[in-house]
């Protein structure tokens, strides 16, 4: 009688372990491969070496791509975060005609297949002669990331106590002052979470970048993408490990931000 429930639990546990192995292994294997002493992307590795990290950190093609990724990521994050935060406030608190349509338009990038966005940017910026311009890529990435910022900040705003703003106003604060001194500090973790995700979206994005960048403004994922198609070298794995570490860092930071958000919003009660 007690055999079956335990067996079921063990089976489910075993299945979960296999599934976790399945979804994590492809990420984990990049680490040993990036440390190979050989010249092939194979496992097991013939020996250990840091040579491919040296390539990624010294070859101008890789360093250039890395710097480009940082610049484009930072610029699109700033744009997406400012526009997204303001819109999230308006959408959460406002009640104006056309609000649902506006939300729908803003959400378009969330479900639009990325290839359509990529080809459309190519078609659009090519007619304007802007292919190869960093601005074009920054705009495209900010457009992709802003709806995500809106969703994140809206989720955080819903638990924000609006009487605090009225309290501020009753004490003589102007709307702008209340915004700066009450709203922003309390919702800051949510805004930071949105900004981190926005950065990651830009930092990992490859399809649009492959359509509208020229050779001298390749981003890191774009460089990996062309590396896979042209010359397979373990430098790709080293660059991939850098991307993975960035993701891990961002994930850890957002977890911390959400912990702070919960703490901040519990205090006034």
């Amino acid at each position, binding site marked *: 009688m007690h055999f079956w429930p335990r067996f079921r639990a063990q089976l489910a546990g075993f299945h979960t372990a296999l599934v976790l192995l399945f979804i994590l292994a492809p990420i984990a294997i990049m680490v040993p491969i990036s440390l190979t002493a050989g010249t092939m992307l*194979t496992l097991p590795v013939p020996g250990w070496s840091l040579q491919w990290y040296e390539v990624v950190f010294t070859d101008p093609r890789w360093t250039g791509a890395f710097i480009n990724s940082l610049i484009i990521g930072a610029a699109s994050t700033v744009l997406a975060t400012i526009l997204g935060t303001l*819109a999230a*406030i*308006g*959408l959460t608190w406002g009640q104006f005609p056309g609000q649902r349509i506006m939300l729908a338009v803003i959400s378009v990038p969330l479900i639009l297949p990325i290839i359509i966005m990529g080809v459309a940017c190519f078609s659009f910026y090519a007619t304007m002669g802007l292919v190869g311009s960093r601005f074009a890529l920054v705009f495209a990435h900010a457009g992709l990331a802003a709806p995500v910022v809106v969703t994140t900040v809206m989720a955080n705003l819903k638990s924000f106590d609006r009487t605090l703003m009225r309290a501020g106003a009753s004490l003589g604060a102007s709307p702008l002052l209340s915004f700066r001194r009450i709203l922003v500090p309390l919702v800051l973790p949510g805004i930071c979470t949105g900004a981190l995700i926005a950065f990651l979206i830009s930092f990992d994005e490859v399809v649009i970048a492959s359509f509208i960048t020229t050779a001298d403004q390749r981003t890191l994922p774009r460089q990996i993408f062309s590396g896979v198609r042209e010359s397979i070298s373990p430098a790709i794995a080293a660059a991939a490990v850098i991307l993975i570490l960035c993701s891990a860092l961002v994930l850890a930071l957002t977890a911390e931000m959400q912990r702070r958000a919960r703490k901040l919003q519990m205090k006034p009660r």
Partner: protein
Amino acid sequence: MTQAGSTIVERYRAPGFWRSVFSRLLFSAEARHFALVLPLLLFILVTVVAPVGHFLYRAIDNSTVAENMPRTAASLGDWQPADGVPGDAAFAAFAEDIRAAASAETLGQLAQSLNQQLTGTRNMILKSGLVVDDSVTADNAKAILLEKLPGLAKPELWALFKAGGSAYTDFYLLQSFDLERDVSGEIRMVGADRAIFLAAIWRTIVISINVTVICALLALPVAHVLASARPPYAGILLALVLFPLWTSLLVRTVSWIIILQGEGPVNTSLLYLGLIDDPLHLVYTRGSLYIAMVQVLLPLMILSILAVVVKLPKELVRAATSLGADWWQAYWRVQLPLIAPGIVTGAGIVFVFALGYYITPALIGGPRDQMLSSYVALYTNKTLNWGLAAALALQLLLVLVVAMLGWAAFQKLSKGKGA
């Protein structure tokens, strides 16, 4: 004018009325909130909606032909393809149009655009730019052109020129559904050797459905284990599920190529164990595409189901068991219907994402595993056939919208049942 009407008009004219409207608009809470959303709305309109609209318009855009061949199209007013080769006037107009296009340096574009609608036209149009010199006049145009460019005797070509009278064409939209117009303008299926797009839509849908089903089956037990895990482990397990979601899609796809390739760890271990004698072709197949897509989308399904499972009241199963149900009955008839909304949510997300996949099929699928997205990219990159690329993109959006409407209707239905 009625009494009520005149008072309204008088109110509009009253001094200070417009000022009060403006101040109400500018300083009301609604206006302030609207003003906060407006910048992002405009930004999305400019950076996303405008480029996508501009691109999709190319599916019906025939302006290259319309702008370069106005005279030819006009001269073919009453001509029907059944009439055969048109008369002198049409050839004279054609020569005039070609001369104009050559001097405006748009002949190349015109040749490209016509070639996309009728293969093999490019060289003839480019050549016609050389044939039409000063010796060609309205009287001898037909004789000279037909002699030097025998291809011009084809009625299909003149049908195409006549269609240039309109700035729009349904050619690419029809082509994306494996349809075409015959010489008399009737819509028909294209020959089996050129019919590739219906199969591509079908393949895209089938792959997406299979990926969704595999994800749901794999995710269900995992969600239960995660929901019943104790606090420190629950957090760790959740982080392990979340982490792949945050990792670059490209990196994960490249990883699968490395794992599954001929000298990859899977083949190496199978060879070592003596289970196979030659490395298996695992990568660039439908199987490898499924493996990579499921790996990428599985966390989304796990999270969607988990959101429902954690809220399940534990007493339900006990109640069902106490009433004499065995475990399987309790699960199938009590728990699963309550989990179903989570599965539907997850399935919707996974299916919609899968439909639009590009990077994964492009890198890890074989030539026969390509989905609609890959064709959009192909016709953009290889042949710069914007019209067809845009028509295929529209088709992808159509499938997506139908899927989302179906999903929304289903959710409404299941919610109505639950209430």
